[in-house]
């Protein structure tokens, strides 16, 4: 399978628009075990999973800040030492369904484990001059001073 094709297929079914600028992350619920996984497995396994949308808000379970530029490949963002902008990554617990890993939008310095988070989208500039949009998390309104 071509790399581009798999990338675009995936990105289309990672989240659905929700209310108030939030999104709902799309996961797969195993039809027998009830186990929730993200993203939905593809190929032969896909039929074993029911498509579900996760709650649009949750709490921050853990996080870190990527202080040094990731290597390209696989990272497509700007990673030159002069222009690189550190970003946060974390796991957010969405209800009792699952914890999802994703980038965290906004000021990475103000994060705290347990803080309320919303599921949103974010865009970042890529090294080749275009932009990549992905699901992300952001501290819920009012949770940051």
């Amino acid at each position: 399978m071509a790399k581009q094709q798999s990338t675009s297929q995936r990105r289309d079914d990672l989240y659905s628009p929700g209310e108030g600028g939030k999104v709902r992350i799309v996961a797969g619920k195993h039809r027998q075990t009830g186990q929730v996984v993200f993203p939905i497995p593809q190929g032969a396994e896909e039929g074993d999973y029911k498509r579900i949308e996760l709650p649009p808000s949750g709490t921050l379970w853990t996080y870190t800040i990527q202080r040094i530029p990731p290597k390209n490949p696989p990272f497509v963002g700007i990673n030159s030492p002069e222009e690189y902008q550190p970003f946060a990554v974390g796991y957010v617990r969405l209800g009792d369904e699952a914890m999802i890993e994703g980038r965290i939008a906004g000021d990475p310095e103000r994060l705290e484990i347990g803080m309320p988070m919303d599921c949103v989208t974010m865009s970042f500039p890529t090294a080749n001059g275009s932009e990549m949009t992905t699901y992300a998390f952001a501290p819920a309104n009012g949770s940051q001073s």
Partner: protein
Amino acid sequence: MNDVYVIGAGIHPFGRHEGKTGLDLGVDATKLAVEDGGIEWEDVQAAFGGSSASGNADAVLPRMGLTGIQFINVANGCATGGSSILSAYWAIKAGEFDTALAVGFDKHPRGSFNPDPVRYGLPQWYGETGMMLTTQFFAMKIQRYMHDYGISAQSLAGVAAKAFENGSKTSHAWRRTPMDADAVLNSRMISDPLTQYMFCSPSEGGVALILASEKKARELGRTQVKLRAAALKTRPENSFEVFSPSLSVERGETPTMLAARAAFEKAGVGPEDIDVAQIQDTESGAEIMHMAENGFCRDGEQEQWIAEGRSAIGGQLPINTDGGCIACGEPIGASGLRQVYENVLQLRGQAENRQVEDPRLAYSQVYGAPGLSAVAILEKG
């Protein structure tokens, strides 16, 4: 079932070695191990070896001699070395061979690893958005652990300072200059809460071990070190592992807990019986969490252990006496074998000025992506 002995051990020092290939390091280590074992290359009946970045490990054969030996290349992430020794152990224990080689070597480019998402069954966007970094996983795992069990950043720094102290006494270590905890703490932040000197770096090195059956070891008069047990386990459900876009909300056991339990059961001993331990310290936090996952203390007790120097040489249970991955760096194929090499030296009383006082049981545990752990327990013969 046959008892298994480690009769020979060889190492090429870890670090950076301009002008030498990864294979050169593996060949050097193999020659030293064969010589140390008091045998000839022609006497080695089976071999298992791995290299992640330096080609097929069986490329040592033309250099050692094309004896027709059965050689199996092993690839098991950071646990490749642990997997090679496990394979050699099984082969001898099964009675199939009297002698076997476990060899590992590597030479990595500088900087963090940049694995391809597809090789881990992940979509490309996972890497494109900047999440395909093992360093993030380690940072996030210890960040949560610190929150849950009250571990301080000072303890993270203490683990690294101990590693550099031990590394300064180890001829095969890479980083041999002591560095105090404050300097570690104040070094560049890489991935919060982990700073530059809390992490190990990819490096270069080679290790080889010769294992033998009891019959062969007795014949050679080389029964100083017995391999009491070896076990490898992969991740169970609900374990928090590297490169996981999603996790279940319940946290369960880890592959290290399973491997430790299996090895202790096979050996018929418990964590309290261990006199010296080499455990996976990809970064300071990994050593702290692995102290509990291997059963040496309870979650949260590490804070006191480190403050009191209980895991330092001379303490209750010296951990990573050669400086571990933090001081030696991590050549993937060789790393787990280095731990066993260090334990062999400790049990033979050859660890020079880092020698632990009269150890009887020595433990090693290597952890690797995407979530497996291998344990070996050695006993003084």
